[in-house]
């Protein structure tokens, strides 16, 4: 992934906010993860299915749909999740809400980012939930 692809993810460069009532920036969330891409995708699928979402997968992109039987079609939570590689040891996960309740969306983001992002502390990996992550490649 090159610098400009990352920069283009900025919410401030998304002028669709001019046309919307809701804060457009709130609809996009990004966090980094040191898990390999395949594991990230798998983990997202697992987590959201447990939360009652339907998942459609297309390469490194997932379309997540949560149908609330009590509400109308346009109130269902629809989120796109995409994984981008910065380097083999570092990925950026981007979540984008395309429809539905913002509070529910925020809850989903908090859950996924706390499951998937790890803090690297100098040369030591801090464990999260008892999982240590061996990095398979020579990281800078």
């Amino acid at each position, binding site marked *: *992934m*090159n*610098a*400009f*692809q*990352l*920069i*283009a*993810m*900025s*919410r*401030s*460069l*998304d*002028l*669709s*906010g*001019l*046309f919307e*009532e*809701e*804060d*457009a*920036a709130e609809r996009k969330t*990004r*966090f*980094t993860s040191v898990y390999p891409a395949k594991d990230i995708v798998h983990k997202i699928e697992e987590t959201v299915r447990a939360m009652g979402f339907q998942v459609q997968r297309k390469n490194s992109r997932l379309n997540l749909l949560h149908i609330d039987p009590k509400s109308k079609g346009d109130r269902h939570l629809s989120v796109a999740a995409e994984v981008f590689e*910065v*380097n083999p040891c*570092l990925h*950026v996960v981007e979540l984008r809400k395309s429809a539905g309740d913002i509070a529910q969306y925020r809850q989903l983001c908090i859950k996924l980012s706390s499951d998937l992002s790890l803090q*690297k502390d100098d040369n030591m990996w801090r464990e999260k939930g008892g999982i240590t992550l061996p990095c398979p490649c020579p990281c*800078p």
Partner: protein
Amino acid sequence: MGCFNSKFTKHSPGYEDPVKLAAETAFSVSEVEALYELFKKISSSVIDDGLINKEEFQLALFKNSKKENLFADRVFDLFDVKRKGVIDFGDFVRSLSVFHPNAPQEDKIDFAFKLYDLQCTGYIEREEVKQMLIALLCESEMKLADEVIETILDKTFQEADVDQDGRIDRDEWQKFVSHNPSLMKIMTLPYLKDITTTFPSFVFNSEVDDIAT
């Protein structure tokens, strides 16, 4: 009959004839008229003077005028075509036209180049890219080690900076974009194709401010 004509007799400073603007941009006359509804809304949000100042622009983009931001500043500066510190209706329409799905690719590539050329030197310098990367990371609350940032910059400049002079010129940018077309995604707003349904301009009752979406 009276409604149609009187709508255009009372207009703000910087207002321009929709027919003229439609001829010069990717918009149709009715789309320009719809944009005028949006423009009126944004330009009156803080000071009702028919012009969009920086605060009103930020408010419209972020719903929060306090959000000072490198990228928003650059976009505002580019929209402020006449460099007056405010955006008038003509500036607004001409600038948004670049984001129309039908606008020429050349214009989009050009706008993006100027956007990233923070110091307006005619080149995108490595330091400028680094500044923007850091701004992006801050905004997203993502943390990347400095070495990782430098590696990303190295890789980017290896690909983009063909003559290896430490900066990206207009031609190098053009070639780089042709190999990385996803970079131009931010330069198109699909909304602009539906603008007449989002902002119906033929409002006969002037008290009706509600916009049907």
